[in-house]
């Protein structure tokens, strides 16, 4: 072995050593969320669930000396682990719970299991566990709306109580307490963080019973950090916990009777479908094995801002073989031949299919980012999420009503040579759900963030186009879906404009 080979060997060894290094990814933390206003005017805002008005929150205890001593001890004895937890939750308890709901949506977004015989053949049965909801887009939009309403309604009551008693934060009551978060002039009784943690915990536990322990642990930490940080007294937390819990129960009562339990009545659907006559072949499942249509009666679920689905039902789709029909199918075939990488990216960017938080979850992410940038008060942020998510729920109801009124086939069913890079949803085409969700989102978010309105509209149109690019929808599904979504979103805007914001 000569010197050259030895040198080469050393160089290669060094290369190996470098390659073998541990790798890590920097995850950007949003940092502390410091609201720019207290928004006392929110005490006059109307809750979505009228029963919230009647709730009574007891007055805060007058003697807080023992509680202050507890907070002082907690602050003094804080551990590194507790500091990490404080950083996690001070990035916004509200938005953190929004993220938790998105995580659960993605985790449970799995279609019911197709049962098989011992020989591997399908029995035609689909096994769903009642404790494991299938967080498909309609289900998920309803979940986000219920969460948004529960949080918002509980916070309205909390704001009323806050400005009624005007109890100061512990670091104001005792100047020797140095909080781990930015000081706030917002009255601290009851704790808005505890309100959100309790309402989110209980509502999400109702929807995802298997997550009870996880949600309880998250809520406990969200409340505990307020004490560790010197930001709230234990009585602030207890009152918030109680209020959030009570409002969550009201939201759960609403959910039990909103029509969701009847939305998947397949026997009734068979009868209804038999009576529908169309010029085109009825939609059929393109999955293997074929699945029953997803939630054929979701169009009858109660809406939040629109009187009923008929008020925003789309006109009938083009007739089979009409000029418009043929033009749209020709576009699908053209996209089989020629599709740019950018069109593919757009198709994938907005897909939000199985195993994800669905299109309403994607828009929740957009909304959360803009809320963060605007530094809205917690209640104004909750208002945005409530109005926006009820609009998403309404868009799902409107869209599903239209889908199961006209039951149009997907492009692949009409022409099997049309294939996809994205998952094909198991329900009729007209109108496009993505277009509905996105247009409704753009309309209502544009109301809250006027400077972003044009950008939202552009995003919504891109999301609508994405379904054409992925060859999952013909263009008319998306064009009409955008119109329908805009109409649904306008109802939410009209409701919001009734109040001084």
């Amino acid at each position, binding site marked *: 072995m000569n010197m050259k080979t030895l040198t080469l060997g050393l160089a290669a060894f060094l290369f190996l050593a470098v390659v073998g290094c541990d790798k890590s990814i920097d995850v950007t933390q949003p940092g502390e969320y410091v609201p720019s206003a207290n928004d006392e005017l929110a005490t006059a805002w109307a809750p979505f669930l009228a029963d919230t008005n009647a709730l009574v929150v007891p007055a805060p205890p007058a003697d807080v000396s023992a509680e202050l001593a507890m907070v002082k001890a907690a602050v003094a004895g804080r551990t590194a682990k507790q500091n990490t937890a404080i950083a996690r939750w001070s990035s916004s308890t509200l938005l953190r719970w929004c993220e938790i709901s998105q995580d659960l949506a993605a985790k449970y977004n799995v279609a019911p299991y197709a049962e098989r015989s011992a020989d591997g053949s399908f029995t035609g049965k689909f096994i769903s566990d009642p404790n494991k909801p299938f967080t498909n887009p309609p289900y998920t939009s309803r979940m986000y709306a219920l969460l948004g309403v529960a949080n918002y309604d509980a916070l309205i009551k909390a704001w009323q109580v806050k400005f009624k008693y005007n109890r100061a934060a512990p670091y104001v009551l005792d100047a020797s307490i140095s909080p781990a978060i930015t000081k706030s002039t917002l009255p601290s009784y009851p704790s808005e963080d505890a309100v959100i943690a309790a309402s989110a915990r209980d509502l999400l536990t109702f929807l995802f019973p298997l997550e009870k322990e996880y949600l309880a642990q998250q809520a406990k930490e969200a409340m505990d950090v307020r004490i560790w940080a010197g930001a709230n007294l234990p009585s602030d937390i207890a009152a918030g916990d109680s209020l959030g819990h009570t409002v969550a129960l009201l939201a759960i009562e609403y959910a039990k009777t909103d029509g969701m339990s009847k939305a998947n009545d397949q026997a009734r659907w068979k009868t209804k479908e038999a009576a529908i006559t169309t010029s085109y072949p009825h939609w059929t499942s393109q999955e293997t094995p074929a699945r029953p249509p997803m939630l054929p009666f979701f169009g009858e679920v109660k809406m939040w801002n629109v009187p009923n689905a008929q008020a925003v039902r789309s006109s009938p789709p083009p007739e089979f073989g009409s000029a418009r029909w043929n033009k749209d199918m020709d576009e699908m075939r053209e996209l089989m031949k020629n599709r740019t990488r950018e069109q593919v990216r757009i198709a994938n*960017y907005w897909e939000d299919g199985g195993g994800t938080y669905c299109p309403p979850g994607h828009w929740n992410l957009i909304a959360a980012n803009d809320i963060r940038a605007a530094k809205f008060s917690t209640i104004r942020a909750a208002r945005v999420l409530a109005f926006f998510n009820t609009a998403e729920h309404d868009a799902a109801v409107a869209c599903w009503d239209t889908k199961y009124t006209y039951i149009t086939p997907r492009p692949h069913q009409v022409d099997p040579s049309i294939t996809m*890079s994205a998952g094909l949803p198991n329900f009729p085409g007209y109108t496009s759900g993505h277009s509905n969700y996105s247009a409704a989102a753009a309309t209502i978010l544009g109301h809250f963030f006027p400077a972003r309105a044009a950008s939202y509209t552009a995003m919504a149109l891109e999301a609508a186009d994405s379904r054409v690019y992925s060859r999952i929808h013909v263009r008319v599904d998306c064009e009409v879906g955008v119109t329908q979504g805009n109409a649904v979103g306008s109802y939410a805007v009209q409701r919001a404009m009734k109040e001084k914001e």
Partner: protein
Amino acid sequence: MLVVVLMPFYRTLETRTIALVDFSTEGINLMRTSLWWTIVALCVLTATSARSQGMLSGFMQGSGNTGASLSYSSEQYSKYYIGDSITDNPGLGTISTRSASLYLVGGLTSFLDLVVALPYISASSSAGYWETITGLQDISFYLRGRIFQLKTEDGSSLDVMLGGGLSTPLSHYQNNAPVTIGHGSTNLDGRLIVQARDASTGLFVMAQSGYIHRSAVTIDRGFDVVVPDNIDVSARIGWTGPVYLDAWIYNTVGQSGTDIGTGVPFPTNRQNFLQVGGTAAWQLPFLPQFSINAGMAYILTAQNVGKSTRFSFGINYNLPTWGGMQL
């Protein structure tokens, strides 16, 4: 000693594999005299869904010698592993991956080789509504250097080599779908290779281990996600007689990562597999600078990859020698 050995250089890519050919001759004089018998080796390997796996042969190319290879491979699976459980998806049926690959292997000096590989891949499913994905995948560059050699008078030898490689996507292909041609990561590969060969019988054994580091990738959904690193260990036994024959076993283990979740493969999936295979190569009698090869590979057990079988064929050409670099 008329030992001219060509060995396979293997590389596996996500859901498909690429076979690398790696010609080696030992001593340019042999080529000049046309007394040489060649060997070639070639190809094979594969994998289904385990992203790029490295595997260099234990035969050096020889200063100034260059080989080129064109190979075709076909890999199929209908069952795949989610974590440790094997399953199938009737909505996808059988996933087939076909690839055509070009390889160049050159001996820069007597102790340093350069390998370049370029695959074109097409992946499709037999059932359901999924589109076929085709495109240029990742280009690879490898350097292999001999750091130690023991040689007996009869030409038997023990060689120790280090290999280092870089692979990176040539096209912006989709990397997050049930049917894809790769994960789109840029990979760094470092490995140690030990080979012993007995000159009297032509038998050899090789063992190697490598670490493949993969960059995070941006998926079309707009997120950057981590692609796990892998450590592999492999062994090969073969014969460099009038024909070339080998059999090998390869095991790779992801160093981090997730199981396939909710039925959807994802670039973060930890991909492990144990695979066996074999290769045969023949020199063409009337065109001694050409050889052909065939190979197959089979996954015995795995996590988060398809249980695939792969066949490959290639034609190899030894270019005229150019003398090598003078160091």
